[in-house]
């Protein structure tokens, strides 16, 4: 594979580790475009004469394929290394846009689904996990901050893509020709943008550690292991499935608000003296995006100080209390509603960003990317469950003639229950049974000679 081979990505002496976060961001800012798919929905519906459900399908397939490719491709990503993974993500994500462009140009809807959802979805999944374990190896002293930076990029990608795509549709037009050209430009620009990651990403040499930092093996953090667990063994542990429940519950609780934010705030204050306009609701959605993105960086960085279990106690415990506040206070204060939902969304983002470091604490860095990929199936489940709960209950309440906060009271009470389940699952997390540990620690503490021309990785880690 030459240039893409893992052995070609081992950093030489003096490689600055602060070059790695931009490589991760170049990938995640790009694939985060997925959250801005809604920009294309109306133009696609009008130009291809399809329904709203049909225009959402490329995105839904994309998220589904994201989960599947992260779950099934994780081991390969660990084996082949981050440059290979980023290159695959680049090719798949960009090709997805090009195939979708062809689909729109030829008015072939299923080619759009196959391109953006199927091919592009592989880029989403492989790109999402590509930099995670590499970042944690470069930042063993701040793994939460490191992964938070990358995963913040996924949240930030929509902030960039949403106005950019809108401007392009204005420039090229929102008929089939304009959309096809927009997709084409997206594919080409993202290919160039992601190439920074492919070119600059490096893995540290075996035994590398930041200057002045030594691994802490203190009894005060029993959940932080120095041992390593393979992905195959990890899924056999109760810890993996407890974290799966934790992530699923946290994401379900957040996504329920996120996907229905604009109508929700308008419904909530519909019967008050100061109703929220559609324009103001757009501003609310933007603030939630900011909270979602900021939470990814801030909370995961805080987790480096307070510990992973404690930060999830905050996400799940305080999240439940905030939902309870929304239920009890109803439409008494717009400011309280906005602040509460923003904090819930920051916990949603924080939950995504902190989980790789939690996995690293429990299972070591050996195959943490692959384990992370398997855990992301919780996202796929939550992505269906969260909107289903909020939408179906709100629709049913609407049919019963209810208005205002009453449309959401029951779904919020369910969210409290789900968060309590997640809280209990987090409480049950204990150190992994040593019988699941690899026989030899993959991250040896003794220094290894930094031979730039050789591959210092042990065979099982190549």
């Amino acid at each position: 594979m030459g240039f893409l081979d893992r052995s070609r990505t081992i950093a030489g002496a003096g490689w600055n580790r602060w070059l790695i976060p931009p490589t991760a961001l170049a990938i995640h800012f790009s694939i985060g475009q997925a959250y801005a798919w809604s920009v294309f929905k109306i133009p696609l519906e009008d130009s291809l004469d399809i329904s709203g459900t049909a225009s959402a399908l490329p995105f839904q397939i994309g998220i589904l394929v994201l989960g599947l490719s992260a779950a099934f491709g994780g081991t390969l990503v660990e084996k082949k290394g981050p440059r290979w993974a980023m290159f695959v993500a680049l090719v798949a994500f960009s090709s997805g846009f090009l195939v979708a462009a062809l689909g729109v140009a030829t008015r072939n809807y299923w080619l759009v689904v196959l391109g953006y959802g199927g091919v592009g979805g592989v880029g989403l999944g492989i790109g999402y996990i590509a930099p995670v374990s590499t970042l944690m190896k470069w930042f063993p002293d701040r793994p939460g901050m490191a992964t938070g930076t990358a995963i913040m990029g996924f949240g930030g990608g929509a902030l960039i893509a949403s106005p950019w795509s809108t401007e392009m549709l204005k420039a090229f037009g929102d008929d089939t020709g304009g959309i096809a050209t927009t997709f084409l430009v997206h594919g080409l620009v993202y290919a160039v943008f992601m190439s920074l990651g492919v070119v600059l990403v490096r893995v540290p040499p075996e035994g590398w550690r930041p200057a002045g930092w030594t691994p802490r093996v203190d009894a005060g953090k029993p959940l932080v292991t120095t041992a390593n667990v393979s992905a195959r063994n990890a899924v056999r542990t109760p810890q993996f499935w407890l974290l799966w429940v934790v992530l699923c519950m946290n994401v379900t609780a957040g996504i329920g608000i996120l996907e229905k934010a604009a109508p929700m705030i308008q419904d909530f204050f519909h019967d008050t003296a100061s109703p929220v306009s559609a324009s103001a609701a757009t501003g609310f959605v933007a603030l939630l995006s900011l909270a979602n993105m900021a939470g990814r960086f801030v909370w995961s960085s805080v987790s480096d100080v307070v510990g992973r279990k404690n930060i999830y106690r905050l996400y799940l415990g305080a999240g439940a209390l905030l939902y309870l506040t929304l239920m009890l206070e109803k439409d008494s204060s717009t400011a309280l509603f906005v602040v509460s939902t923003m904090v819930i969304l920051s916990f949603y983002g924080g939950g995504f960003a902190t989980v790789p470091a939690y996995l690293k604490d429990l299972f070591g860095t050996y195959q943490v990317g692959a384990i992370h990929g398997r855990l992301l199936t919780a996202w796929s489940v939550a992505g269906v469950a969260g909107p289903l709960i909020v939408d179906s209950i709100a629709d049913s309440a609407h049919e019963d003639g209810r208005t205002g906060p009453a449309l959401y009271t029951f779904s919020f009470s369910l969210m409290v229950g789900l968060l309590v389940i997640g809280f209990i699952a987090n409480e049950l997390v204990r150190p992994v049974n040593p019988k699941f540990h690899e026989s030899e620690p993959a991250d040896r503490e003794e220094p290894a000679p930094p031979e730039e021309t050789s591959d210092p990785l042990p065979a099982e880690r190549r």
Partner: protein
Amino acid sequence: MTDADGPSSNAAARTGSPVVMVVAWLWVAVPFLYGLYQLAEKSSKLFE
């Protein structure tokens, strides 16, 4: 092997040169700032 955050002198030109560092961070910061600016404009509508 231990390493500082900064580059060592003989490897700086091809690994951790300040120019590469600045270009890499600008590469991701410029679009991000554009997105943040657009976000700030949208958010302000909530308070109008």
